[in-house]
């Protein structure tokens, strides 16, 4: 028995050491059911360090939920997906503001480029869908990416804001691993989440512990007393794929946002139909160019529209790749 206690002491000490190295120094307690519970004490009140989506499967994949004091990347494949990417981020914000009293405003920073390409966040819709009051919103629109990053970094260290959203389009050179690390550290220090919305961007190395890829999903029909109303567009729906997380578990979820309850609901049955429709008109994703070296092409990607001579049939090498001796020899 004594030996067991000593072992546990050692484990605790090691865990504490790991936490110190990782930069999170919460008090970790062993709960009776064997799972770890992390409690950060502030002003005598325990604050949940994780933002739980309410979907059990998603929370488990994320290791309990999204960390509140951290940078979280939310990716969208195309600029026209900006609506649903922003919608998902706003749903998370709405969950965040639901648990904590929404006295502190949310700052939404971005470059002029993304706001003109994908539209400016519209406070009227935000209140209707996510219950976020216009008074609780601040926007920052600057022309240059380095200025947007500066605004976000300065905002991330403020405890007076409840969250910071930074919206950037494409894969600009300025937004590299170092920049995300700076954002992440500031978020850790202040204990406020920073959501980095990256529209039309490919996954890059990031300091954020979680990266979610959001794509649109068909909405279910509106529910009425007599059943679903055919042809109507119901609650917002998203397809969320976990691309990076602490647990490293892959996962794809179709979530529906309930604006009345301000909660997520997972959808499983309709998922099939949504999947089928999506494959109807596939377009290869190409990130928005940003005047930097192209990233190495992922295996299997091709350009969306190929010009030039007709392609070789599938499973056959193209003309250039064909061995020389088989080439039709020119005569004359």
């Amino acid at each position, binding site marked *: 028995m004594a030996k067991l206690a000593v072992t546990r002491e050692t484990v605790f000490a090691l865990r504490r050491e790991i936490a110190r190295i990782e930069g999170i120094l919460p008090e970790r307690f062993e709960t009776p059911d064997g799972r770890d519970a992390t409690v950060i004490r502030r002003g005598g009140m325990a604050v949940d360090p994780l933002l739980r989506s309410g979907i059990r499967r998603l929370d488990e994949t994320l290791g309990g939920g999204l960390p509140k004091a951290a940078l979280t990347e939310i990716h969208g494949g195309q600029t026209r997906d900006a609506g649903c990417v922003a919608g998902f981020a706003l749903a998370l914000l709405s969950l965040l503001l639901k648990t904590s009293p929404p006295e502190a405003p949310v700052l939404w920073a971005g470059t002029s480029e993304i706001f003109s390409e994908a539209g400016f966040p519209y406070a009227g819709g935000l209140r209707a869908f996510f219950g976020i009051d216009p008074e609780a919103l*601040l926007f920052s629109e600057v022309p240059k990416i380095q200025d947007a990053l*500066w605004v976000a970094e300065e905002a991330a260290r403020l405890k007076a804001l409840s969250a910071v959203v930074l919206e950037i389009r494409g894969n600009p050179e300025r937004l590299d691993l170092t920049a995300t690390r700076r954002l992440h550290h500031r978020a850790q220090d202040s204990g406020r989440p920073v959501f980095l919305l990256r529209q039309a961007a490919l996954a890059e190395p990031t300091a954020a512990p979680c990266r979610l890829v959001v794509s649109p999903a068909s909405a279910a029909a509106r529910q009425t007393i007599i059943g679903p109303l055919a042809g109507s567009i119901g609650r917002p729906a998203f397809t969320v794929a976990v691309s990076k997380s602490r647990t490293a578990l892959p996962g794809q979820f179709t979530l529906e946002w309930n604006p009345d309850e301000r909660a997520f609901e997972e959808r499983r049955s309709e998922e099939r139909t949504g999947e089928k429709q999506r494959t109807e008109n596939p377009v290869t994703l190409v990130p928005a160019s940003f005047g930097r070296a192209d990233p190495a092409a992922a295996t299997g990607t091709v350009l969306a529209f190929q010009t030039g001579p007709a392609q070789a049939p599938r499973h056959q090498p193209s003309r250039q790749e064909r061995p020389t001796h088989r080439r039709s020899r020119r005569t004359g």
Partner: protein
Amino acid sequence: MKRGMGIADARAMHPTIEVVEADPDADRRLLESLADWCDRYTPLVALDGLDGLFLDITGCAHLFGGEKPMLEDMLSRFFHQGFGVRAGIASTAGAAWAAARFSGNHIVAPGKEEAFLGPLPLSALRIEQENRTRLESVGLRTAGAVMAAPRSPLVRRFGAALLLRLDQALGRLDEAISPRLPAAPLSVERQLAEPITQIEHVQLVTESLATTLKSQLEQRGEGARRLALILFRTDGAVSRIAVGTSRPLREPPVIQKLFHEKLSAIGQDFDVGFGFDLIRLAVLSTAPFEIRQADLVGEANDDDADIALFADRIRARLGEEAILKPVTVESHLPERAVLTVPFAREVKLENSAAKKPGKARDPVPLSVSRPEHPIRLFHSPEPIEVPATEVPEGPPLHFRWRRALHRVVRAEGPERIAAEWWRETIPKIKVKDGEDPEVVRNRVAAMEAARLTRDYFRVEDTEGRRYWLYRQGLYGMSDKAPRWFLHGLFA
């Protein structure tokens, strides 16, 4: 060489002469920059004609060791900048004007104006040329002669202006000079023995000046709302850097931080030259300062102050438009219902929902019947091509937006939003002479379009993206088919 000589004559006399065109605007700018520089002696500097400056040095001379050292300092600094300057000091503006122009670098002692002006010619009185010749024709050739003459015939023959100038010069009447810049309510400055060239040093001096300022602000019970840092370069150039604050401010580190943002925004473009030898921090406007008690926990919960400071720093660095807040307005038009205004601007809209006095309005209940509005709205609606609709007044079957074709799977609507006739006055179209009729027609069309009824549809495409489209105008209103626009995106 004489004034008014032709260029050809002058060239004949001196073949190597350099001819420079007169540039009154540049002269004016130079005089203004000199006036800015003279700000180091007194905040009240006025321009006098095309070639003179009035400085009201009341209460300032002792800072430079008296009137004579001040005059000498001023003359030597102008000399080193390469200007030929004549200056005079007197108790009245008129006497000082005469002293500067007629007996160079002279200080007229108080009460000695009459004796000083007496022997001077009439032009020392700042009177019109016409009056001067008329006075001279009756034998009054000096200012002393005019003073000795009886007043009432003078007024009758030469007008009140003559005696007004005389009385002003002698101090019988007050003369107000009109300063270029309003005098700051508070300002502190530091003369530097050695000019500084490093921006970091400027910031250090700013902070120490702000510390001095703090006690003065505390005595007045006020905080600064607008501050200006005035940097006097050794070669005479003056830079003014102004920052605004969202709430009254007096903490030196905070003030220093705001100027730090402003200076780093200017960055490399900031011309330091040979350094600054005088730095002044002026408070341009103040407001009452409320002192709040902090809580014992130590975590200061004055969050508004943090946000205000954060907003001020963004404004100082990136401009007023860089940080915005939404303001809801009672309007049906979506682009008018929410305005985004700069953070610092006080919203004074009579129909602003947020600012109804007395009762706090309940937000509009989120009922099912309320039509849903998008979460992203385009600044200007984007035109889309709609080849076909199911029924004439119905939603599109598919549409082309940004060259990509989107097939509409489901649609809800229409939500009809008409122009606000009670707000809009029908403007008269002005046609200028010789204007292209095509341009006029476009303008008329744009104005008409703004007043057209819009039918909004929520549509969802095959991949699950939800858009907010509208058709501008109705079918059958004109021979052209109504145009379609995409106005927003849904979650």
